[in-house]
């Protein structure tokens, strides 16, 4: 659905985008991750035909952004990171305005606007001035706007920025809903945990260079592969248990354990499992049996047993560290 080939954009001496090659399939929810100034917005602007690339090519929904810009525009919805609104219009007029801009006839507008307002939960604000909406509502209105012409692809630049927790949750569920509707979404965000929950794929970009593009699971695997240990397990022992340091020493002697540390005061054990052990055992609790057995055999009584999950933040840090000079 979205293809870029060696997309390059420079602003003066600054390389905003450096040979970006990307493939996003139909129906995917693609999370675009990167620090400020990494090139996320530039990519979105190029794909939305707002900025022309210096080199390279791209197509959206099967249309080339250079040759068929008009067709591209009809098939995309772009929501910028900061939504400027016309303060003198009501919500309904605002959506009518863009519906008219996309050539939707007056007859069909009311129905379409009703649907998108219902989807974005703004029906009760239909005749209020846009200016009177809260920030969260304005963001939702932005989503409603991009849906008015029923585009196949949505570019959402930081849709949750500046929102409070409740508005963020609402926005996330709205985007998940859009994903279920079969839209292809390219979403950029700094809040990585949110992307992890709703994205099928992610792309990590830094200083204009794409460092990673693929599924989230694959990103986690790579993160594990780059770290010394494959998995970390945190165990809390009961009061009647054997000393944590003793158990840690016993576990450390196991060849499948990379490192085992203990804190007697809090009765906590931290055990890092080696890569091979993790891959041989496969995913899930089956891979941890030898740890449990080792603790029990050493006289330990387990109060809690928690394998630490790799988070998207960890993946981002691991995959971007030292990648771009």
């Amino acid at each position, binding site marked *: 659905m979205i293809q870029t080939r060696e997309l390059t954009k420079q602003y003066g001496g600054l390389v905003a985008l450096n040979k970006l090659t990307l493939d996003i399939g139909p129906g995917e929810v693609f999370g675009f991750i990167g620090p400020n100034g990494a090139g996320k917005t530039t990519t979105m602007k190029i794909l939305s035909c707002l900025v022309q690339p210096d080199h390279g090519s791209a197509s959206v929904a099967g249309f080339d952004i250079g040759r068929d810009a008009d067709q591209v525009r009809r098939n995309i919805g772009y929501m910028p990171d900061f939504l400027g609104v016309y303060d003198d219009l009501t919500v309904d007029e605002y959506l009518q305005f863009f519906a*008219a801009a996309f050539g939707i006839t007056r007859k069909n507008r009311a129905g379409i606007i009703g649907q998108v307002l219902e989807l974005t939960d703004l029906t009760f604000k239909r005749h209020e*001035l846009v200016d009177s909406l809260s920030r969260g509502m304005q963001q939702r209105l932005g989503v409603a706007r991009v849906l008015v012409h029923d585009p196949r692809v949505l570019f959402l630049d930081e849709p949750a920025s500046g929102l409070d927790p409740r508005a963020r949750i609402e926005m996330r569920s709205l985007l998940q809903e859009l994903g279920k509707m079969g839209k292809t979404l390219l979403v950029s965000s700094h809040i990585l945990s949110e992307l992890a929950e709703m994205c099928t794929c992610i792309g990590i970009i830094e200083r204009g260079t794409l460092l990673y593009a693929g599924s989230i699971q694959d990103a986690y695997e790579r993160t594990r592969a780059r770290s010394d240990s494959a998995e970390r397990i945190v165990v809390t022992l009961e009061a009647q248990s054997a000393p944590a340091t003793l158990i840690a020493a016993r576990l450390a002697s196991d060849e499948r354990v990379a490192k085992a540390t203990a804190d007697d005061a809090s009765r906590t054990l931290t055990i890092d499992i080696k890569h091979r052990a993790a891959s041989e055992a496969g995913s899930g609790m089956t891979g941890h049996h030898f740890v449990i057995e080792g603790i029990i055999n050493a006289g330990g009584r387990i109060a809690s047993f928690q394998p630490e999950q790799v988070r998207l933040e960890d993946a981002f840090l691991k995959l971007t560290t030292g990648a771009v000079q």
Partner: protein
Amino acid sequence: MSGATTSAVAPTRAKSRGPWFVGGLPGPVFAKDVWILGKRPSTSWIRLVYSLILLTVVGLVFGASIDSARNAYGYSGTALALQRSQEVAPAVTVAIMWSQFVMLAIIGAAMGAPAISDEVRAGSLATLLTTPLKATQIVLGKVMSRMVELSILALVSLPLLLAIRTYGGVPATNTLLMVGICLAMGLLAVQVGIFFSIRFKRPAGPLVLSVLVIAVLTMLLPGILAILAQVPNLAVYQRPLMFFAALMSPQWAMVMNTATLMNEGGVPGMGDVVTQSLAAIGVTLVWWLIFFVLSCLMLRRSMRAEERVKSRGSKPVVAAVSTGSAAATTAATTGDTAPTKPKRRRRSGAVQAGMSREVSDRPILWRELQQPMLGRRWMAWTGGILIGLAALFIYYVSGLEGVQIALAIVSTVVWLLFAAVATTGCISQEREGRTLDVLLTTPLSGWEIVWGKFMGGMRRLWIGPAIIMLHVLLSGCLANYLAGPLSTLDPFTSIRRWQGGWTPDVVHPIALLMIPLILLGPIALLAASGVWLSTVLKRSTAAAICNLALALGVWLVVPIFLLILFEGMLNSGEKIVTLWLMPNPVLLIGSVIDGCMRDESIWVRQFSFVGPDDIRVSLPAYVIGLCIICGLYLGATLLCLRLAAARIARGTGRAK
């Protein structure tokens, strides 16, 4: 560790404060603004353009003056060369001073107009208002920082003035007085610009209002006093009225200094030039003080409201004052999701919040047509009442004798000024309000966007010609009434009188057809060039200034340049000057009103195209000429709109 942090921070702070006199008494706002203004590319451009204009004016005046001096004294001898220098020096000094006078006032207004509104739009004023800074410190900092820039501009001419003083023997007193008047005028312009900037979210409005207010204070008010002094019933007050009229007008002080420098012995009966100039500077400073206090009070009001809102923990008031996208910006910085219910504003048309209008299939044009015709309602009413009162006063005092042409010309100039800034924000405001990107993701063509914006501007601009036409109509009725009360009750008599043209001060109704023909083209061109500049330049203030400069250049500077070049230096080429002056709307309005007021049948009257080579033609030929000129203007309008559409289309791959 902490030592390292301190050593890292301290030099940076010291560096950012700049020299002691920058970070001194006027406070941090002054230091910041001096720093920022100095770094802006636009400031460098202003300095460059200012210097070039000054150089051109001086060059032209010098060329014309030295030529006449050569003719008078011949070419031989050092003594004669010095003699020529002394002849030329006053004219060059006067040219420099008048150029400075006009330019510093315009630049001052242009610098003051965005001073607060830019901060509001960027959301930084709300932050500034939360600091312990007082309103006086903020306003004074803004004013003084801009005065630093104006002083730098004034210093540009210093070497030349010193040279003139040394070799030309120009009296230093008059030069210093004129510099003082120029700077005082610049100070007032900056302050008025800042005053309006507090209430407006875009700088184009404050810019125009500043120019108009300065014109009212320094020209209209003294003019009214001068007119009153001529009223027979007030003959006893003639001297004091004329005295105050002269005091209130820095332009008059400039004229007196000019007369003194040019060895014309000053203006008889108007007192000492030094006293007069110092008094004019004093009055200008009083006006500055009034506007300074008003600005501080307005800003303080905003600050207090801000404090009140802050104590309640809701949306900043600055956002509510500014409204619109600026409000959204401020709200964004606070990150709130449940703002206090905003003040419900009255919108144009009958539709209020709670109802929605149906958007037409041309959304850009539709939205432009929904915009209020004359800004805020209170402004429209105040403006209308003031204009009406001024017109009534002039009708009453002058009895129409000789004011028809002046009124038409002044109205035309004012309206061209409005036209020059009416559309300059149409695209740049979308950019500043961050709505442009969203608009450009729609399949609307460049032409649809540009045409919608242009027509929206034109809709707001028809009022000007309508007022001029209304004036012609009303003054016609009034004059007929004065000629004989019964005639107003008998429309046929009025028409017969008009047709016969026997009432001398009545403008023939044929002018009602010619006025739109004259004004349509220039207004359309200025609106279109405003749209084009709005697509080219990032900031609406820059677009407004450039469009004003374009209008002044085409209709004022170039003709003066041509006049000096052909008349003063080459002593030929009158036809070229006349040709250039032919489409000048101000001259055309004057000549139409003049032609329509004469006491002869309309078919035998001669209408003139004003210029050194005065061309007089009959009515049909004149109307054809006006049609051709209007066509040329509309052609240029189309070209500007096409350029604007192409500019929008470029880079976004859309249809032009």
